[in-house]
């Protein structure tokens, strides 16, 4: 089956073959939604391999690039309704806290949560506490993820948790933190529910918190 071939090519980093296959499928009149589905299936495989430490950043980046190129080919051909999305496992509001503009770690976590079927609201970098609060009010997530690379993030995260508390939203969300200066003690200091060492740990925490494994 061509769809399986496409999944295999993306998941195994054969970039040119994947794009060529996608183009052929679309030219042959295959439903563009099937092509996009193949992309999502491949991403799930890439995510699993990343969690097993078979894949690292290069594979995540390349899989993302291939998917983007394929989506650009497929999307203009979609007529009518887009494919029905599977019901997300949960909602996550994520961002790098105010004063810190590092995004790589945060982006990987957001990516991994997405491929694990979470709906991710990425607030970007240098995110003030009030913006976290507003977004939590707006989308009502189960989980909040805060990222920070610099030591200033420790106090800024603490402030952010404080603001969430003051807004009366603390009991509605589980909060996870991550980044270079963080550890379990930092989570206590900040008032977060848990520290995650990497993106795989973030997924594990999210699954626990949403009642899975």
């Amino acid at each position, binding site marked *: 089956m061509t769809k399986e071939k496409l999944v295999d090519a993306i998941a195994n980093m054969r970039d040119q073959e994947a794009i060529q296959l996608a183009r052929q499928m679309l030219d042959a009149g295959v439903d563009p939604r099937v092509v996009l589905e193949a992309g999502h299936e491949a991403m799930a495989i890439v995510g699993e391999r990343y969690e097993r430490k078979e894949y690292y950043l290069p594979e995540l980046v*390349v899989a993302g690039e291939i998917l983007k190129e394929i989506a650009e080919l497929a999307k203009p051909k979609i007529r009518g309704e887009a494919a029905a999305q599977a019901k997300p496992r949960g909602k996550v509001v994520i961002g790098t806290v105010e004063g810190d503009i590092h995004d790589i770690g945060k982006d990987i976590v957001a990516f991994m949560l997405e491929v694990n079927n979470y709906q991710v609201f990425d607030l970007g970098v240098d995110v003030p506490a009030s913006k976290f609060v507003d977004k939590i009010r707006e989308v009502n997530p189960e989980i909040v993820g805060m990222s920070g690379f610099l030591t200033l993030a420790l106090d800024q995260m603490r402030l952010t948790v404080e603001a969430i508390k003051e807004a009366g939203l603390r009991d509605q969300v589980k909060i996870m933190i991550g980044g*270079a200066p963080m550890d379990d003690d*930092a989570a206590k200091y900040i008032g977060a529910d848990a520290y995650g060492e990497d993106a795989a740990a973030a997924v594990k925490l999210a699954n626990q918190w949403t009642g899975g494994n």
Partner: protein
Amino acid sequence: MKKSPEELYQERVKRVLDACTGKVPDRVPIMGPYELFVYNYAGVTIKEAMNDYALARRACHKFLGDFQPDADFGPVLAYPAQPMEFLGVKWFKWAGHGLGDNIMYQFVEGEYMKAEEYDEFIYDPSHFMATKWLPRSFKALEGFAGFPPMRLMMWFGWTGLLTAFANPELQQALQNAIKAGKQLSRWFASLGRYTQEIKRKGFPLAYGAFSWPPFDIIGDTLRGTRGIMSDMIRRPDKLLKALEITTQLCIEYGSAAAGADLPLTWIWMHKGSEGFMSDEQYKTFYWPFLKRAIEGLVERGCIVVIYCEGNDTPRLKYFVDVPKGKVVYHFATMDMAKAKEMLKGVAAISGNVPNRLLLTGTPDDVKAYCKWLIDTVGKDGGYIMDTSALLDEAKPENVKAMFEFTREYGVYH
């Protein structure tokens, strides 16, 4: 009898050199590259330090007097705001320029070299840097896009090529470069002055030169993290060719340390840590080039400090393969006991006091951690006490505990 500054200077140089080269010094040295902490301790914001060079020197003198590190960095990490503002640096945000007044500068990720430009970089790195990288990096140097290829000047090439200098945009860019050069000279004069001042007080300078791993030279300000990660899979041959060039650049950057009293070349490691790439990718794209650069720097008379900023435990098996007694590995996150066991007799170790602990812990927590480090890694020399990462926010009493405890407990008998 009280020691003279000259004696203290020699004593400190010997202490640091002994530790770096794997000998047993009189005690565990303590030093490191500190950023924000130094200025905040003196009541100065990083914005003020970056704008007022005399103030930055005064803050560093205060830190030096109160903490007495065995070697000092001085104000080199408070980059000069004036020329940065004037040039309009695009890949940096700093206090007063996109960040608050007391926040350390941070790098803005981007593709400052595009994927399809590898060949151009490989063919003539200087011309690429002049016509592509400079204009993309500095607003005031955008006119360098029209800089002529110097490699074609010979015979009558110059007749056509020199007409480039009649272009008003290039002329303006050259004028701007002259002005920035003058501004930067004032900053370097301040750094030079500080070095002389601390030498008279008995303190050596902790660095001879800075450099970057061949992989990170491309991954930081040329291709960016996403770019270089993609290149490892999508254009490996071009990346490998470019790494041959940046290996030479790494050596060229770092060789200036040779001949200094402490000939230390600090190599700032960014993207080789655990999590970024697989072992296979590391041994293909990262380590072989870094190893050659280390060997090249050692050949030229430098001692190389490999400043690891992530978790490098999985890389230890490669780290053992360097010239003996010429390399110091600084570790942020690391299985320190394992590192000591593997690197003993090969390379020295520094760092690992968690910055988080220095901010949120107590002096007793800090002392306990330092004791463990001295007992475990400091055993038989070859260890320098330092923080895990460049020191920003921290409680002064915790930093003091780290210094005082090391001076007392770190003595070798």
